[in-house]
């Protein structure tokens, strides 16, 4: 995937969340955004997925200029997995996926069902297709969210801390699913607290602090951090 950000700024209520973000990446398959809480990671992800617009600056994802593209067109090209609880509670697992395929992507009922069933089976969710979100574990429901994200065959999949609401066991379950996607060459950007996971799953790592990109590079920077901030962040993380 290609990412290009030029002087991107974003603030809420006069509080600067992202300050002059510049970035140019080509051909990265998987990108992890790490950093302490309040660093602006999730905000950056929301700008990349056009859930929100920057106050100023330019963002390109692949060939799309996010200032110019019609958001509804862009949303058809990307997938998004939220922190938690965004399966629609009144629909079954299967319908959560087929509804989007039928309504937004104009697939026939048969096509939508086939795509959804194939994916759910492939991710070992076949036995849950007729359940509702309330009948799933947190891990299962995040895995369904992931399947929902990839069902539309997106160019890029965005993950916003997909395991932050889960206990360690369920976290593993979800992280293995994401690793599986990597094996299948899905391109993704993930905001995560799981540094060990980032090491395994990401090609490229962006470390943010206080609204700025402090350090970024090949995943090796997690072994050999150059900046003091990243060193400190990593040592704090591994203390635990």
């Amino acid at each position, binding site marked *: 995937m290609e990412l290009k950000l030029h002087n991107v700024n974003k603030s809420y209520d006069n509080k600067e969340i992202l300050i002059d973000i510049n970035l140019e990446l080509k051909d990265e398959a998987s990108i992890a955004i790490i950093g302490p809480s309040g660093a602006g990671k999730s905000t950056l992800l929301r700008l990349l997925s056009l859930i929100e617009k920057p106050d100023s600056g330019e963002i390109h994802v692949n060939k799309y200029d996010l200032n110019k593209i019609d958001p509804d067109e862009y949303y058809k090209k990307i997938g998004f997995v939220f922190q938690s609880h965004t399966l629609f*509670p009144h629909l079954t697992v299967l319908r959560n996926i087929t509804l989007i395929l039928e309504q937004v992507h104009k697939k026939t009922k048969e096509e939508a069902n086939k795509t959804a069933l194939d994916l759910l089976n492939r991710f070992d969710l076949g036995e849950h297709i007729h359940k509702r979100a*309330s009948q799933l574990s947190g891990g299962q429901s995040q895995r369904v969210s992931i399947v929902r994200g990839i069902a539309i065959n997106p160019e890029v999949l965005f993950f916003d801390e997909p395991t932050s609401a889960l206990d360690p066991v369920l976290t593993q379950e979800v992280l293995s699913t994401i690793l599986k996607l990597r094996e299948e060459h899905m391109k993704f950007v993930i905001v995560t607290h799981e540094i060990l996971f980032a090491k395994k799953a990401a090609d490229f790592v962006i470390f943010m602090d206080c609204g700025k990109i402090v350090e970024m590079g090949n995943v090796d920077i997690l072994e050999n951090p150059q900046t003091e901030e990243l060193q400190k962040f990593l040592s704090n993380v591994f203390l635990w």
Partner: protein
Amino acid sequence: MISDRQKRILSFLTALLIFGLFLALIYFAFPGRKDLEFSKFLPWKNLVIKGWILTIVVSIIVLISSVILGFLLYLLSKSKILVFKYLADIFTEVIFGSPLVVFIILVFYFIGAPLNIDNRIVLGVIALSLYMAPYMKNVFEGAMESIDEMQYQAMTVFGFTNYQKYRYIIIPQLLKILIPPFAGNLTFIVKGSSLLNFIGVPELYNAIITVGSTTYGVVEGYIFLFVMYLMITIPLIRLTKYFEKKVALWN
């Protein structure tokens, strides 16, 4: 061995039996029981049934109109224009603080006379609908809050149009959340409609009291009332519970 289901049925029947015995006890302790003569009502049964039907019809109309008024009140209370919000707030508090019977009579005099409405049924419907509107407003408030903010974001990023959001996600969820409290409020309306007797609406209470006093069967009348209201409200309460269970399944 008896199954769980059988055990529940048995316990339920036992509870019914205890109530039955209790009622029988009350009946036999009642000094005037020898004078009770329910068949007095037979010649008047058409009037009573008409009243019973009117109670049901009025309640359903009030349910619909108070849902509409309640929704408007909800919109007012969420308005960014503060005056609208306060109008809704004040109305809500005044209603919550007023006894229904007082409100009905005030509507009869102060809305009926100036607007020249002399149809008592219409006035009764107006009074009950206005009274129920704030309760319905609260129902809408609760329902809207129950849809998680994240769901709206998800709908957006999945590319749903506004129409699709409402048609497939928001309204189906709202309906399921709204139906149990609506059914609950309908029970409230049915019971409250008995107070329309005070402005002369010939609903069930009014009909039976009228027959009771002409036939000297006031006590029998109240027993009939007790049973006939329960015939409406118990199924409604069961229905409400059924819907609540269904909603709880996916919450």
